[in-house]
């Protein structure tokens, strides 16, 4: 009985601390996240990590149309190694983790007028959303996110290299 009471005290302190910190911390998350891949990308919905809506390309077909039009630059947000192992044919590598270093060269080659489609490995990753956000901040106006990413593209047998 004594132990139960002590455990309740320790857990109670933990709960109070947990919800207080989560409430005030800028990195805090919502009580329920978005973990259904059918709804798009999965995310814990942190306060400082708002994924932009409304720029998502929901289907592989739609992405294929943009790809075939030849007017869109496909940008791979994954790491250099993942890119090297295989990527959408003709896609440009811009790892979101090295954005700061790589951005200058990217900006030189692709002026903010170009239309961009970002992607990562699929709906379980949010790198493509973060990259899109960075690009929008840099003045690129036409940015979309292909949420099914490399895995979705590859599964449909579309061109990779």
């Amino acid at each position: 009985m004594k132990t139960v009471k002590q455990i309740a005290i320790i857990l109670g302190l933990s709960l109070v601390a947990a919800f207080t910190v989560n409430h005030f911390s800028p990195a805090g998350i919502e009580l329920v996240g978005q973990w259904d891949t059918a709804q798009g990308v999965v995310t814990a919905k942190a306060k400082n990590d708002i994924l932009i809506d409304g720029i998502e390309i929901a289907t592989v077909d739609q992405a294929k149309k943009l790809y075939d039009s030849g007017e869109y630059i496909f940008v791979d947000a994954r790491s250099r190694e993942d890119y090297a192992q295989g990527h959408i044919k003709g896609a440009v590598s811009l790892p979101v983790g090295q954005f700061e270093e790589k951005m200058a060269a990217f900006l030189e080659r692709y002026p903010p007028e170009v239309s961009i489609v970002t992607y990562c490995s699929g709906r379980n990753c949010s790198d493509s959303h973060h990259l899109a956000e960075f690009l929008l901040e840099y003045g690129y106006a036409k940015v979309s996110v292909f949420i099914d990413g490399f895995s979705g593209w590859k599964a449909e047998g579309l061109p990779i290299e």
Partner: protein
Amino acid sequence: MNNFFTNILINSWIELAARWLLGATFIYASYSKILAPAVFAKIIYGYDLFPALLINLFAIILPFVELTAGLALIMGFYPRSAALIINAMLLAFIISLAINIIRGHEFDCGCFALDANSQSTFSGPLLTRDIVYFALGIYVFFYRNSRRLCLRAG
């Protein structure tokens, strides 16, 4: 020989060392999770074991249970109960790890550092490590002599 082991096990300095090691490990483990709950939530999602409704709650609460129980062990605040809580968590980790090893599910354990880009690690050593911590927890729990440096031995 038997006496030798008994003497070690009832030595209050050994108990203190075990308690501090376990406590420090859990405080350390809670640190990066508290800084980035969203990343931790994604790792929990990666375990593919828990309902979507609970993932964020786990990610918010679990790191603070680790921190509080770890602090309680170090300060000697109800150390037996803190050891029980820690062992309950360790048991949950061990079971989750084991399930995923058995079904061959690759994932990032997210035990200490949170790195969104990290590759899934081989889980065998993790399991062994957790079992060692679990044994330490049992020792702290069953230790019967008086404990050193305790705020409230309980």
